[in-house]
Structure formats: C-alpha cells, structure tokens
C-alpha cells in the first residue's frame, strides 16, 4: 500500500496545492514542500528499513489490484532496489525543485505546483509499475504537466520547445504502445493468458523476427527519451526553455525514465534481439557521447550547453546497457543518479544566474568568482563532476560503465573514453566563461543566499558521497541488476557480432577474466 500512497500523496498534494492557491499565494509552496517531504521520508524509510536484499528475491514490496480485468490489466506496483534508488533521486530532486521555484516562480504559483507534483507522481508511477499498460499510462501522464511547466513558465521560446518535447516523446511512446500490444497478443496466443503483467510477459518466447520488431518499438520510446543521437533534438530546446525546476526534472528524472526503461524492459524481455543489436546500440551511444560533447562546446546559451552535455552523458548509459555485464549496468545506474544530481545542479546554477542577470548567454558573463566565490566553488564541483573527476559520483559511474563496455567492445570503448577529453573541453569552458576572466557586466553579482546554499550544499554532499562511498547505492541496485541480467549470464555476448562492426584488439587471456567473474559471483562479497 505504501507504494500507492507515494503516488496518491503527490497527486492529492498537487490538487490541494492548486486549490489552495485561491486562499493564499504561499500556501501551494508549503503544500508542495510538505507532500514531497512526506514521500521522500517514506522512501528513505523504505531504504533504511530494508537491509540489502538477498539474491533470490529482488522485489521488496509488491502491490496488486485488478484494474481492467477484461484486458488483463492490473494496478501492479512493485519496488526493487533499482526503483528504490530512482525514487530516492526523484524525491530528492523534487524537493530541490520546490525550493528553487520558491523565488523564481511568481506567476500562477498554485498551478505550477500542481504540475510539478503531478510530474513527480507520473515519474514515480513509471518507476514503480510492473504492468506494461500501466507503465505506458504513467509514461504519458508525466508528459502533460511537464508540457505545461515548459509551456507556461518557460523562457522566451517556450511554446516551440514544449511542442517539440511533447511531439517527440508522444510519437516514440506510441510506437512503444504498439510493441506492448504486440507482446501482449503474442503472449496471449502462446499461453492463453492475456495479461500486461511484466512478470508474466517475461516468459514470452519470441520468434527472432518478432522480437526484433518489438524491441525496436520499445527502443523507440526509450532512445528518444534518453536521448540518443539522432533523436535528441527535442532536448536542447526543452531543457533550455524550461524553468529551472523543469530543467532539473527533465534532465534529472525524465531522461532517467528512458534509461530505466532500457534496463527494466528491453534487457529482460528481448535477450536475443538485444544481443544482436548491441553493437549498433553501443555505436549510437558513442556517437551520442562525441556528438553531444562537440555541440556542447560551441553553445553560448548556458542551459543549452548543459543540455548537450546531457546528450553526451546519456551516451554512456546506452553504451553501458548494451554491454550486458554487471559493471556496466551498475555504472549505468550510478550514471542515472549522478547525472541527475550533477546536471540538475548545473541547471540550478544556471537558474541562479538567470535570476540575477536575466540572461543565459555565457558570452555576457565572466569574472563572477570575484563577487560570488561560493557559487563559483559549487559550480566548480559540478563542472568537475561533469568531466567525471574521480572522487565525485560521476567518475564511478562512467568508469564502471567503461570498464564494463570494454569487456564487450574495445574500440567503441576507446572512442567513448575520448569523450572524456571532450567533456573536459566543454566543462572547462563553462568555468572560464562564467567565473573567470573579466566581468563584462556592469553590476556585481550577489553571492548565494541562505536558501540557495540550502539547495546547493546537499547536492555537493551527495555527489561527494556517491564518489567516495557509493557502496550503499550499488548494494541496493545489485539484486535487480542481476535480475535484469539473468538472461545474459548464461551466454556472454558473442564476440562475432562485435567483430563485424569493429576490428578487435587481440586479447589473449579473456578466459581468465571469465573465471574471475564466476568466482566473484559466487562469492557473496
């Protein structure tokens, strides 16, 4: 039931916030803060009260209630480590979103918070549901409020951005719906049991051709959401036009639903088709890493720049997912969390700057370190996170991903690693243009105030924690990752498929590694 409460509290809070706007302008903010705090507290409690689960049951809590029995649709929620982590991230960023909007949003406050909470509710649903119909349902539910957030409270070009965001995600989502339906009927014909239950559908045996088509249906939605080049073009617009809270949620959470979908659905549902597609997917990932990095370098709109860095960073996710090993997947999960934090933080800093300067053009900025050293330090931390400096969470994520992807494909990993150099190039440009050099503005930039520090400090603390002691997070994710990988452990991805794409470095002792892996897998520690 607690899972249902999470969603219900958010939705009810949203409605309440909307209504309360009639009474008092500040009330919606407090209601929103209260509801997010409540769900965050509940999730934290769940996390702390559940010791690291043992291997054979990845699922911590399940909730099941028939919904549309005619079609085999249940209101089925379930929580495992992966979902738990995603929820923690969701509510953490949700909390920050409420806080950063405290001063930024001054028009239609009540409706803003309604949308904010409903986006969070939709995202929560996506991370929790184990019924494919319900999944699609939530997948769409989170879009509308997001559309409003961008379209109403966004910057100058908000309508265009909102449209683009909506159309891209909808178009891809519909393809996923077709694939879900295809899977539903195939499974139904096979077993006579027509159901959208994730757990049942996992047992579907698919002809290779069908599997491939269905996989592409799912991929369409997730790759657009992630986003993978060449489906990324909604993202820079949406990210740069959204209000700060919107950008944080977009970059921090909505992109993660794509990654989550890949992990949760694509991997276990289509074990053979994914292996076939893996080299191409990894190639897409690498292209994304490099392409995003190159484009980020030349952007002059700060939020647009950060948006392209997201494209680049999300390339690591798909690279990792299609490596099919635990290191890479742990890296992916870490990347989801750390990227959520670090990019969210960069957007927040962009928001702080925008509030003070009313511009996002970095060519007009410069020399802010002199007057705003606190902001400078915090920006520095997250810029460094974005170029994956060791000691910060992003490094663990990207290093694990690359270690894992190296096992799968050498050359692509090499190019992905080169992406780190490019990350350095664009990241340092951010620091240089904003905080260093001479101040081009007439006015002095006020440093962060107490509220802003309250937002920034937890993020710095989190990113350091994730960088120095990520084990609690890794432990939480482990059982579910192993579950997702079950179909792959029996047969590692055939090297043949990879050598078709790229010449391989000759390696002599790969067998040794496998032995080590096996040994370590049996070892509980």
């Amino acid at each position: 039931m607690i899972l249902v409460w999470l969603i219900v509290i958010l939705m009810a809070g949203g409605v309440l916030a909307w209504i309360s706007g009639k009474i008092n302008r500040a009330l919606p903010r407090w209601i929103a803060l209260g509801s997010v705090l409540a769900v965050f507290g509940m999730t934290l409690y769940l996390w702390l009260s559940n010791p690291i689960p043992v291997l054979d049951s990845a699922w911590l809590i399940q909730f099941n209630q028939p919904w549309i029995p005619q079609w085999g649709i249940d209101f089925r929620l379930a929580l495992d480590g992966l979902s738990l982590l995603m929820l923690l991230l969701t509510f953490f960023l949700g909390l920050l979103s409420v806080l950063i909007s405290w001063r930024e949003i001054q028009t239609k406050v009540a409706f803003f918070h309604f949308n904010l909470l409903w986006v969070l509710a939709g995202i929560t649903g996506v991370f929790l549901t184990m019924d494919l119909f319900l999944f699609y349902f939530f997948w769409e539910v989170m879009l509308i409020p997001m559309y409003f957030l961008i379209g109403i409270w966004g910057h100058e070009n908000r309508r265009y951005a909102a449209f683009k965001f909506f159309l891209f995600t909808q178009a891809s989502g519909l393809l996923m719906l077709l694939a879900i339906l295809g899977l539903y009927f195939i499974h139904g014909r096979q077993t006579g049991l027509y159901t959208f239950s994730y757990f049942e559908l996992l047992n579907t045996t698919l002809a290779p051709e069908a599997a491939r088509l269905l996989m592409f249906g799912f991929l369409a939605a997730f790759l657009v959401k992630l986003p993978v080049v060449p489906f990324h073009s909604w993202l820079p617009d949406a990210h740069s036009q959204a209000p700060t809270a919107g950008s944080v949620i977009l970059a921090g959470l909505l992109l993660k639903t794509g990654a989550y979908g890949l992990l949760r659905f694509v991997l276990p549902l289509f074990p053979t088709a994914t292996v076939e597609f893996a080299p191409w997917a990894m190639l897409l990932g690498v292209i994304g890493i490099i392409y995003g990095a190159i484009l980020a370098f030349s952007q002059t709109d700060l939020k647009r720049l950060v948006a392209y860095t997201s494209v680049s960073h999300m390339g690591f996710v798909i690279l990792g997912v299609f490596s099919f090993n635990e290191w890479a997947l742990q890296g992916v999960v870490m990347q989801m969390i750390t990227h959520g934090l670090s990019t969210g933080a960069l957007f927040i800093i962009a928001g702080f700057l925008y509030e003070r300067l009313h511009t996002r053009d970095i060519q007009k900025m410069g020399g802010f370190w002199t007057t705003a050293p606190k902001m400078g330090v915090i920006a520095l931390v997250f810029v460094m996170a974005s170029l994956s400096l060791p000691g910060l969470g992003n490094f663990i994520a990207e290093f694990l991903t690359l270690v894992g992807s190296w096992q799968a494909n050498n050359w692509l990993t090499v190019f992905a690693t080169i992406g780190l150099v490019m990350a350095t190039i664009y990241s340092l440009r951010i620091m240089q243009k904003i905080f260093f050099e001479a101040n081009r503005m007439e006015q002095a930039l006020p440093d962060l105030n107490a509220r802003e520090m309250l937002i920034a400090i937890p993020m710095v603390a989190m990113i350091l924690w994730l960088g120095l002691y990520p084990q609690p997070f890794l432990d939480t994710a482990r059982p579910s990752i192993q579950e997702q990988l079950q179909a792959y452990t029996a047969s590692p991805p055939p090297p043949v498929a990879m050598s078709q794409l790229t010449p391989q470095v000759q390696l002599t002792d790969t067998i040794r590694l496998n032995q080590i892996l096996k040994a370590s897998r049996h070892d509980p520690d």
Partner: protein
Amino acid sequence: MTLTDFQHLMPLLILTFAVLVSMLVIAVGRNHKIMYVITAVSFLAAFASLFELRDVGRYTIEPLLVVDGFGVFYIGMILLTALLISMLSYAYFEQREERKEEYYILLLLATIGACVLVISTHFASLFLGLEILSVSLYALIAYLRTRERSDEAGIKYLILAAFSSAFLLFGMALVYASTGTMEFAGIATAIANFTELPLLLLTGFGLMIVGIGFKLSVVPFHMWAPDVYEGAPAPVTAFIATVSKGGVLGVLIRFFMEVDGFRYPTLVLIFTIVAIASMLAGNLLALLQRNVKRILAYSSIAHLGYLLVAFLTGNQMGVEAVTFYLVAYFITTVGAFGVVAMLSDKERDAEQLEDYRALLWRRPWTAAVFTVMLLSLAGIPLTAGFVGKFYILAAGVNTQLWLLVVMLALNSVIGLFYYIRIVAVMFQQADAEVEMEPRGRLRPSIYLASVGTLTILTLLLVYIGVYPTGLLQVIEGMLAVATP
C-alpha cells in the same frame, strides 16, 4: 404490428409523442423553458424505457427493424448524447432573439432518425431513418437564419446531402436489382450464393459507400464537414459530429456484419484507403487551422478514420472497440462543442483561436474542461479517449492490420500538434488590449445547465479513462448477442 412490437419501439414512440406535444405547445404559446424541459424529459423518458429492453436478445420487427443489444446500446448512446446537447443548447439559444422553440422539435426528429438508423435491417428503414435525420439537419444547420454562414452551411449541406443520398439510393437500387431483396439478411444469403460478386452488386456497394461515406464525412467525401461545422450553431455541430455520424456508423456496422463484407478484399481495400486518407487528410487539414470549429471538423474526419481502423478488423473485438471509441468520442465532442457554445455570444460563435487566448487564466474551469476534452481527443491517458484509442490499437494489432495501426499512431502525433496548440493558446498570457470579459452575458443561472453538463461530461470522461471496466462490461454484455 403487435403490442410487443410497440413495446420494443417504446423509445421511438416516446420521442414521436414528444414531437407532437411540442408542436401543440408551440401552437398554444411560445416558451423556451417549457420546450426545453419537454425535450429533456422526453429524452430521459426514452432513455429510461431502454432499461426494459436491456435483455432484449434479438427481437425482429419484420421486415424493417430489429431491436437487439447492439441497437439498444446505440440508441441509448444517441439518446444520452441528444439529451446532453439539448442541455447545452438552452443557454446558447436563450441569448438569441429568434424563435428558439422549433429547434427542439427538429432535434427530437433528427434523434428519431438516428435511432431508426441503428435498428434498421432493411434498405427502406435505412433510407427513412437517414432522411428523417438529414431533413431535420438541413433546418437545424440553417437555424440561425440571419447569419450568412448558417445559410451557406445549410444550403451546402442540403445540396450535397441530397446528392449523396442519390448515390446511396442508386446503389441500393442496384443491390436490389442484383439480389432481389432489400433486407440485410436476405442480401447476405443472396451474396453467399455468388461465387464471384456480380458487377452490378459491386457497383451498387460502391455507390452506397459514397452515400454512407458522405454522412460519415470520410475522405474524399469530407469537404462539406468544415464548412457545415463552422456555419451551424455550436450545439447543432455537436449533433452532426456525434449523433448523425454515430447513427450512420451503427447501420454500417450492422450491414457489414450481416453480409460479412469483410470477406471481400475489394471492399476491405476501399475502406482501408478511405481510412488512411481520412486520418491523413483530416489531421493535415487541421494542422494550422485557426478556426476551432473547423479544427474540430477536421479532427472528426480523422477520428472517423480511426474508427474505420477498428471497423476493418471485422470481428467482435473490433465492434467493441468502435463502440467504446464512439462513447469516448461522443462525450468528448459534445464536451468540446459545449465549451464552444458556452463561450459564444449572440453575434457569433467563439470559434477563432484568439477567442481562447488566456482562457486558462480568465475562466480556469472552462479551460480545464476544454483541455481535458482536447487531451481526450488526442488520446492522452486519464481520459476516455486514451482507452478508446488503446482499444482500437489493440484490435488492430490483434488482427495484425499493421499498416493501419502504424498510420494511426503516426496520425495521432500529427493530431497531437493541433490539439496541444489550442491548449497552448489557452494558457498564453493575455495581451493587454484584449478585454478580459468582452461580451455582455446572461444571468449566471442560465448557464447552470451548461456548466452542470460539462462537469458531468468531464467527470465521465475521466472516470472512463481511469476505470473503463464498467463501460467495457456493458459493451461486451450488450454486443455479445448482437453480432452473429
């Protein structure tokens, strides 16, 4: 005709009686409110009489009509829709000084026509139903006769409808000529004996499709729709978009299921082309349109295309999908036009996009209702439109009509654009020059019925969107007996 026959035709009789009473009342003295109450009560009564027929099974009134679950459900749908439309009409017509009372008579008559359509099993009853509907509509469309557009729409609809009726009739004649019967069942038997369909019959079917296609406003017979939608008063537009089309679609389904037209690749091909063309043309035409009523017209063209997808599956699931979608579509369309009607003033309807600018801030609840309606049309979850679209897609995937299904998905995206565009206009900031409340309005109490209706519609829409099980059960239960 026996007494039981009359019992089974009770809803129609109630409506007919209401028409007669209305005429008498008008003869005695004009009173808008009384007429309005009579109409609403008669619709309610007719609908209530349907409960008697709920478990009717299949009752045939030889040779013209059949009352079965399918028919009862569709009649119910039509009656409720007509009721809702009449509820919305009151405020709309109250602010117009013209004679308002005959409107309700025409509305009742048109509803009777539609009801006859969906229970007809004979060309004659089909024709009669259709014409009762059409002729009433001619008058309804041009009802606000001082408006140029109303007249233009009326004459366009009249000429074109008569023109298409000629096609339909000629087609019927040819089918009759080649089969020797005008009963659906008889035609089915006759066709079953042919190894290959004779030319005459095919031509007949082809011509009939023209006539039916016109009423459904599918491509390429759709061109009247935007003009008529624009010119007609908003409630009448809602009526055309829902009741008229629903009735025709009902009889089409009945006829096709009866003769099992899905066996003939030619017919399937024609409908496939029509469906795809309707989806594409409808959505593309609506894309940058700035007149809301025209947008809704084009969108209805597209929606008929979607419906045809489910129709083309040619099985029980398809019929259920069509029916479910129709319910959702009816609610949504009535709701949307209801909003249009509510925002209209006595000079003109609120049809330009500009009229909706910043509506969300001026009249948040109206805007919210309209947003929900538009989202339902777009097929976004939490609304009935989503479940309906899902049902259609499911039916399509089930029958593996991949081309149609993919086209549907693609078109949904195009469609999304213009629905969202209206939503975007509503939450735009108001320009300083635009007056917040431009027009003098009636007493708020007059709008009570409209507001209530819209609220009900919205709640219904969300309810079905969130919990469609109930409606699904009803549809499955009612339709199970109907389809052979």
